[in-house]
């Protein structure tokens, strides 16, 4: 597999290599039956030339050297902990504790020579490391690691790994790992020179059963000069997989659509309150989202400085803070500006436009004009596979989060006293006051709620977009589009509007491309509004006229 879900979950193959090697330090001798303590000084010397070609040769030499030190050196290289001294040509490994040990022998070095330089790696070296460590990890005691290693071997399709693979296969007890190993072996066989046609066809069948994108890649690598029967088998397998994938790709597009939809929903849902319920044409809505994102940034900075251990919880901590903070800003805006504008909806456009300019520039002055880094907690990075769907955790959480926010908001509006008062006040402020409802308070709360929701949307959006002063601007148009498309004043409309726009967008994109797809979507919305001039979930009947 080229992109095994679990592999990418770790995000970085270097970590993987380290983990694999740590677990298998004692095993290389078994895997590569060799004599005792071979001499590795030649490869080590090559590490000190500061040339990628030499580094690669050295690495390959090490991998087959059978030296017990090899694994440690490879791990250090992958991890950027392998150093050399240009002066003394000594190669050293930095330990976790910060000290140095000699690469060849492993004895601690009392005093590192001055001017140490790291042995540099580039993508080519990284791939070589991966291949090397993959072979080493095939016999790890941990089945999960073996599974990952099998995937890595399959990806590398390095013929040199074949003996190790065979050895591992012979010993393997775990069925899952075994099939992965078989697959890896088949993948190598397909492209290997001098394999009998029958073996190749068998290998093609094995790979063909896997049925995913990676299998496709393997099958396409059948040598051009292969026998016709082999080619036919490969083509048949390819056709089968492509058909399979085409079906899955519909599902994949729907998934992309839903996840885009949930982003749109998050961006729009606060607006569904300030605009949809209150009728304020809130041009500063995007800036509320931005404030939420910056809150996340600040929270993460604080956590990084004071308690890095909490980093994984940083988003959870940021959510209530962003809600309260942006909510308070919203209340401030409502009390100082918006409240003078009720009944003059269009003027709210002017004022909130002004406010949005001010907020943008304020953030620019405080945090600078450039993007700020908001990190992803580990539980939000990576992806897993569901059939042929690749589902990223980040998106999954955003969808879940969007739904939670939606349900919470719906419940607040429908089931609570304040929800009722909000709706009453926005429908007839004067009469609501005469019913004893404190309209000032309700207005402030409603605007605060809408702003606060925008703020927590910002927490989520900080995970997928820039955290910059312009963040809000990029969502404001889409947000209005969603709210209006769904039907103003109807929360369900916002939900369905966001989802249908998201899915439509993602369905169009593969055919029309991103630009034309977006244009087509806009045109569709325009035409759709002709059919339903009050949006998807239009309120009907007399009630809307009064």
């Amino acid at each position, binding site marked *: 597999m080229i992109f095994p879900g679990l592999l990418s979950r770790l995000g970085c193959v270097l970590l993987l290599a380290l983990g694999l090697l740590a677990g298998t330090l004692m095993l290389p001798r078994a895997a590569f039956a060799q004599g005792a303590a071979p001499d590795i000084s030649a490869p080590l010397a090559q590490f000190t030339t500061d040339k990628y070609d030499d580094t690669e040769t050295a690495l390959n030499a090490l991998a087959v050297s059978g030296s017990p030190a090899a694994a440690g050196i490879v791990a250090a290289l992958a991890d950027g902990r392998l150093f050399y001294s240009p002066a003394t040509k000594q190669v050293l490994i930095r330990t976790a504790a910060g000290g140095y040990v000699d690469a060849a022998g492993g004895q601690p070095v009392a005093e590192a020579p001055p001017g140490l330089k790291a042995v540099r790696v580039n993508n080519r070296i990284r791939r070589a490391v991966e291949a090397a460590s993959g072979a080493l990890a095939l016999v790890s005691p941990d089945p999960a690691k073996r599974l990952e290693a099998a995937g890595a071997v399959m990806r590398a399709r390095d013929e040199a790994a074949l003996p190790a693979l065979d050895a591992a296969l012979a010993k393997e007890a775990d069925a899952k790992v075994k099939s992965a190993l078989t697959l890896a072996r088949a993948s190598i066989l397909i492209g290997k020179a001098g394999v009998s046609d029958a073996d190749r066809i068998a290998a093609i069948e094995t790979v063909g059963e896997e049925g995913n994108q990676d299998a496709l890649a393997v099958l396409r690598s059948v040598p051009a000069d292969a026998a016709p029967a082999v080619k036919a088998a490969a083509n048949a397998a390819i056709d089968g997989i492509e058909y399979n994938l085409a079906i899955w790709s519909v599902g994949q597009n729907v998934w992309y659509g839903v996840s885009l939809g949930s982003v749109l929903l998050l961006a729009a849902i606060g607006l569904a309150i300030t605009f949809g319920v209150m009728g304020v044409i809130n041009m500063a809505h995007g800036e509320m989202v931005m404030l939420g994102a910056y809150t996340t940034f600040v929270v993460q900075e604080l956590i990084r400085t004071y308690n890095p251990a909490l980093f994984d919880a940083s988003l959870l901590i940021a959510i209530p803070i962003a809600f309260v903070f942006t909510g308070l800003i919203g209340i401030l805006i409502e009390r100082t500006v918006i409240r003078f504008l009720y009944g003059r909806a269009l003027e709210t456009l002017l004022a909130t436009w002004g406010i949005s300019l001010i907020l943008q520039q304020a953030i620019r002055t405080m945090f600078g004009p450039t993007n700020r880094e908001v990190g992803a907690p580990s539980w939000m990075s990576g992806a897993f596979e569901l059939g042929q769907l690749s589902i990223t955790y980040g998106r999954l959480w955003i969808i879940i989060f969007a739904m939670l926010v939606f349900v919470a908001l719906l419940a607040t509006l429908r089931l609570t*006293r304040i929800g*009722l*008062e909000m*709706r*009453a006040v926005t*429908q*007839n402020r*004067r*009469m*609501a*006051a*005469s*019913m*004893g*409802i*404190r*309209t000032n308070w309700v207005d402030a709360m409603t605007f605060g709620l809408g702003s606060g929701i925008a703020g927590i949307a910002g927490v989520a959006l900080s995970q997928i977009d820039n955290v910059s002063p312009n963040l809000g601007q990029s969502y404001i148009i889409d947000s209005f589009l969603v709210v209006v498309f769904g039907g103003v*004043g109807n929360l369900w409309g916002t939900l369905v509007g966001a989802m249908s726009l998201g899915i439509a967008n993602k369905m169009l994109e593969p055919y029309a491309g991103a630009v034309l797809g977006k244009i087509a979507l806009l045109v569709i919305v325009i035409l759709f509004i002709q059919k339903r001039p009050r949006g998807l979930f239009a*309120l009907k*009947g*007399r*009630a*809307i*006229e*009064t």
Partner: protein
Amino acid sequence: MLEVQDIDLFYGAAQALRGVSLKAEPGKVTCVLGRNGVGKTSLMRAIVGQQPVARGAIRFEGDDITAVKPADRARRGIAFVPQGREIFPLLTVAENLQTGFAPLKRPERFIPDDVFSLFPVLDSMLRRRGGDLSGGQQQQLAIGRALVMRPKVLVLDEPTEGIQPSIIKDIGNAIRYLRSKGDMAIVLVEQYFDFAKELADHFIVMERGAVVMSGDGAALEDPDVRNRIAV
């Protein structure tokens, strides 16, 4: 209980009320009569606080409430049935009634049975949106909504407008019943003279923003009053 003293009211530069005074007492119905555009509605708005007064004072239970906000007047016990219904169009009938809970304490937050026995149609349409109701149904809802507040003063601006005769009778009976309980003061604007005549304990007649006549209910029998309004 409620006392309006010598108030002036303006819309921009136009004066709508000139030195109007009025009194409402518990267990009594005060009727405001007059032709179109003489300022009846303006007076009611002044009482509930929807329109500020330029001069004069409004007192309620001894306090000067001239500067008190409408919501706080409602919380003190002044309920309003406005001309033109002004129900909340997108709230259901039930929700419309529940808006009246705002001044109430938690245990009192229920809809009194009276409301439904008076206007059975509301009970059968609890889930319909207020704005979808027919005109007369909306008027009934507006009255019901005010009653939910258990007010001390009930201000009714032409409550019979657009209501079918049988229910007008019921409303009349209801007002009589509320009056008989003795703790509620009722201010009633009414063009339907016979209706007013039957209910009024006190009345004022307005003309061009000013009070031109006032007296006890009995004085309404005087043909003079009817003429005044008819001119």
